[in-house]
Structures are given as structure tokens and as C-alpha cells.
């Protein structure tokens, strides 16, 4: 009975979060007025999706990835090419982008996953840059620096989501799906297995886990979510070029999860929203806004090196509010 009651209130809390994302925030944005707040919100949601996906690999599984923007780019180009050349609609390009990014990610992960710490980080840096160079120079396929223009807007089963408001709902739906997937993966025994790899993968192997396989799985899932974010980006921006998928973007995504708190899901969301909305909110101070963003990043790392919402407090929050992560009433073991 107690279990049932708590399950109901957990569902209510999830519904509350969904109402916030799909009801309250768009209403507020509409109240501020114009398409511009919605555009910023779409960008923020795309980066929330990216930050959450990187958080699975870097925060939970402890693999520092410096090439995440490359997989974002693979997804964006897969969606853009499929929709402009083959005329595929968004419900098909979205999974295609996720699968394409995941396939590239797993192919990359197979040889490099045996590397640890900084060596793995450097390998992902190299691969991220290789993807960028390929997008830039493979002109016959990707149109190189000219980019891909006139990517059709989002349309789902006859429902036209071409405006900024429609784009917001599509981006919010993908972000919510990404957050939910990563939440379920990390706040479970599977997530604990990934955390054990982060702390000591030799010890985890001695306990019977298969570190290489777990790491490849986590990396593949993370790349798939980043690829889905790429599809949303391609269809909402309607123009993509290789410049959006550079090392700087990878570092920006990493900065989001470090500012928010490595390994913490709400931290990733907060970090992404802050680092996207802050430069826009500071538009008034002109030239100084990027300086202000850098100073903000520096100060938050200096005073909160474990992040604004660290992993330990985030897990406690989830446990209390959302009933996830090792509830007493669930008999569960490692599956």
C-alpha cells in the first residue's frame, strides 16, 4: 500500500515537471513576446539534451570526452541529408540521426575504449576534429563549408510544427525523452555499475562486470542522444554548416556539465540553461558578455569545484522527490 501511494506521488511529480516544460515555460516565453525568446529556448533545449548525454559518459561512467560536438554533427548531417535529398520527414530522420551517431560512436569506441583517463580524452578530441575536417572537406557529400540550406521544418503526422513554438515543443519532447532515458539509466543498478567504472574499473572488473562492454554501451547511448539533438538542430535551424560542430562546442558542452556538477542530471540541465541563456541575457552589455560568461564559469568552478548541484545532493534529491534510485520497496539486484 505504502509502495502504491509513493508510486502515485512520484507519477504526480513527473507530471508536474512535464507541465512545467510543456505548459508554464512556453506560456512565460509567449508572455515575454516574440519569436526570439523561443529561439533561445530551442537552443537551450538542444544543449540540455547534449549536456545530459555527455553527463552519462563523462559524469557517470567517468570517460572524459572532448569530441561530443562531432557526434552532434553526425546526427545533424544525417537528418539534413536524409530530409533534403531523400525527402524523409522528421519522425524518420530523428531515429536515423540517433542511429547514425550511435554507429559512428560505437565504431570509434571499439578500438579506443581500452584507453583510460587522459588518453581516452585525447582520442575523442582527435576523432571529434576528424569528423569536423570530414564534414568540411567532403564537399560532394556534405557540401563542405557552404553547409546545407533549406532543411524542411518539423512536421509530425500531419501536425505542422514549423514555427518557433512548434520547434520549441519538438525540442522539448526530445530533451524530455533524453533526460528520462539518462535518468532511468543512471538511477538504477546499471548506473551504479557505470559509477563503479568511474571510481575504479579494475576493481569493477574483479567484481564480475565487463568494463569495456559497459563503456561501449554507455558511449553508444550517449552518442545516440547527441545525434537526436543534432536532428532537432538541423530541422529547427534549417541551415547547418561544419562550423557548428567544432572543438569549441565540445568544450562548451563539457563546461555545462562541470559548472552544473559532474554526474548530476539536474546539474547538467541547470549548467546548459545557464551557459546558453546567460550570454543572451547579457546582450545589453555588448562586447563584455563573453568576458562575463568566462568570469562566471571561472568563479563557479573556483567556489564550487564539484558543481552548482553536485552528484551527491542530486541523487539525494531524486531519491526523495522522484522515488528513483534504490527505493526500499523494490527487490532488485544486478540484471
Amino acid at each position: 500500500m505504502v509502495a502504491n501511494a509513493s508510486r502515485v506521488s512520484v507519477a504526480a511529480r513527473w507530471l508536474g515537471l512535464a507541465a512545467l516544460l510543456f505548459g508554464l515555460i512556453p506560456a512565460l516565453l509567449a508572455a515575454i513576446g516574440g519569436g526570439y525568446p523561443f529561439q533561445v529556448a530551442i537552443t537551450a533545449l538542444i544543449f540540455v539534451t547534449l549536456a545530459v548525454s555527455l553527463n552519462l559518459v563523462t559524469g557517470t561512467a567517468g570517460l572524459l570526452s572532448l569530441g561530443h560536438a562531432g557526434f552532434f554533427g553526425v546526427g545533424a548531417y544525417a537528418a539534413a541529408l536524409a530530409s533534403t535529398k531523400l525527402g524523409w520527414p522528421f519522425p524518420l530522420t530523428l531515429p536515423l540521426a540517433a542511429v547514425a551517431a550511435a554507429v559512428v560512436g560505437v565504431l570509434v569506441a571499439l578500438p579506443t575504449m581500452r584507453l583510460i583517463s587522459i588518453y581516452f580524452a585525447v582520442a575523442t578530441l582527435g576523432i571529434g576534429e576528424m569528423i569536423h575536417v570530414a564534414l568540411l572537406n567532403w564537399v560532394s557529400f556534405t557540401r563542405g563549408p557552404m553547409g546545407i540550406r533549406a532543411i524542411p521544418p518539423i512536421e509530425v503526422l500531419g501536425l505542422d510544427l514549423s514555427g518557433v513554438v512548434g520547434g520549441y515543443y519538438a525540442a522539448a519532447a526530445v530533451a524530455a525523452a533524453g533526460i528520462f532515458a539518462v535518468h532511468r539509466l543512471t538511477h538504477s543498478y546499471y548506473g551504479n555499475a557505470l559509477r563503479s567504472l568511474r571510481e575504479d574499473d579494475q576493481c569493477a572488473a574483479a567484481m564480475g562486470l565487463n568494463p569495456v562492454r559497459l563503456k561501449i554501451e554507455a558511449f553508444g547511448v550517449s552518442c545516440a542522444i547527441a545525434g537526436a539533438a543534432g536532428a532537432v538542430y538541423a530541422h529547427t535551424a534549417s541551415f547547418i554548416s561544419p562550423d557548428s560542430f567544432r572543438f569549441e562546442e565540445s568544450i562548451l558542452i563539457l563546461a555545462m556539465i562541470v559548472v552544473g556538477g559532474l554526474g548530476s542530471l539536474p546539474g547538467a540541465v541547470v549548467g546548459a540553461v545557464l551557459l546558453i541563456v546567460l550570454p543572451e541575457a547579457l546582450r545589453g552589455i555588448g562586447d563584455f558578455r563573453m568576458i562575463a560568461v568566462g568570469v562566471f564559469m571561472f568563479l563557479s568552478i573556483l567556489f564550487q569545484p564539484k558543481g552548482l548541484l553536485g552528484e551527491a545532493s542530486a541523487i539525494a534529491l531524486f531519491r526523495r522527490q522522484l522515488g528513483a534510485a534504490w527505493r526500499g520497496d523494490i527487490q532488485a539486484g544486478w540484471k
Partner: protein
Amino acid sequence: MPDFFDAYFAQQIINGLSLGLVYALVAIGFTLIFGILNVVNFAHGEIYTVGAFAGLLLIVGAAPPLLAVVLFAMAVGAAAGVGLERLAFRPIRRFSDEASLKSRAMREATLLSSLAVSIVTRELMVHFFSGEMQVIPQAALLQEVIAVGPLTLTNGNLFIFGASVVMLGGLQFMLYRTRVGLSIRAVSNNVLGARHVGIDTNRTIVATFAIGSALGAAAGILVGLYNGNIFPYMGFAPGVKAFVAMVMGGLSSIPGAVISALLLGVSESVATDFISAGWKDMIAYGLLVVTLIFFPQGLFGHGRERV
């Protein structure tokens, strides 16, 4: 193939070697700092840019001989390096309990504090000098052509060769023949051990930052005058290439970093014979990934337990 080893090819090798020497100077700074702190210094590319701007300001202001410009850039670079250490690295070192030392969040925080400082530095330079290429007085450029047989060198090539060899030699002397060098080697070998035998680790770390940054700044001004372009974003590409060279060399081996940097410079320069210029960056990253997969300790790295 009759004209494979023609003059053009030799020319490309020479250009590649000067490019490689520049990467080497930047890579040494990376390697010294990584060796001693085990942390990647993301702001190293900005030190390179700061060196170039400092030299340019002196040229515009006083037009002194080239040697004075380089020495001035090195001094400014050293000062910037010390400031960087104070600002971005020392505050994070205050957490020295075991839980913090093992925490991944803390390690990534140090990495990103240097990144944050580099963003602020770069944007300040954009603010004061604009993001465009700076105008360099014609007389200061190192682009005077010197013909040697069928080859065309510039005095920039010669100056980069000379300066890099002198600096690399000086570094080697400093590391192996002086007390500062001894303490740097001791701290990078084992921080705790060095502290036990009475070495002031904080001072050694500051000295390492000063030396590494001075070399990076010298590379900045030399390349700026050789290529004729100095702008706030110039530090990014050499920074990444130097990072690649450091990893290929085995992370903490200075000769390894130098040899890998030369290899990288020459292969990039020769590759433009065979592939279009746009793809040439693929060489550096391809070499990096291949090295990591097949020689994960780097080409010249010392044995580590695991990589």
C-alpha cells in the same frame, strides 16, 4: 618517379621543419606543465597569442631589434604564465584531502578553470584589439627571401631554426645542469617525495609555468612575424597541434614531444603535395588516433602501468 625528390619537395621539408619547431616550442610548455601537475593547461594557446601581441606592441611602439622583441615577448609570456598559475591552478590545489584528490569532478574542474581563464583572456584581447588581423610594420616581417640554390628560404625560416635550437638547448641545460631544473624534474617525478627532501613545490610549479609560457610566447611572436598575421584567435590551431605532439611523444617526454612535433610539421607540409590543403588537418588527428591505438604510451613514453 624521377621528380619525387625535387627542389619543391625539399622546400616542403624545410617549411615543415620550421612549422614543426614552432609546434615543438609550444608542445614543450604543455609537456613541462603536464609533467609537473598532471593537468592539461588549456590556456597555453592564449599565452602564445599574448606573446605575439606583446611583441607587436613593442615593435609598433619602439621598433627595437628582433632579439629584443623576442626577449620581451618571452618576459611577458613568463609573467602571464605565473599569473595564470596563480589564478587558475593554485586556488584549486587548496583541496588536498584524499577524497578531493581522487574525485574526478575536481580534476575536471582544474582543466576547465584554465579554459575559463583562456576565454576571458581571448575575449579581452578581442575587445581591445578587435578580432581582425593586426597590421604589422613591413620592416618587422620575417619574410625576406634568401635563395639557396633552387630553394627559397626566408629569413623567418632561419630565425625560427636558430631561435628554436638555442631555446631547446637552453632548456636542456636548465633541466639537467641547474638547481631549478633538478627540482622541476624531482617534482614531476614524485610530488610527495620532492616535498620530503625539502623542495618548495609551489615555487617549482611557478618556475615551470614561467619557463613553459616563455617558450610558448616566443613561438607566438616568431610565427606572427613569419606568417604576417597576428589576431586573438591565432593560438587555437598551434595549441591543438602541440597537444597532439605532446601525446604522441608520450605526455611527459620532452625529446619525444620535440620529435613528434617535427614529424607532425613535416608530414603536414609534405602532405599538401598529395592531398588538398583542407584535408591536411586530418593528418595530425589521424596520426594522433593511430598512435593512441597502437602505441598508447606514445612513441617515446616511459612505461606506465596502464594507459
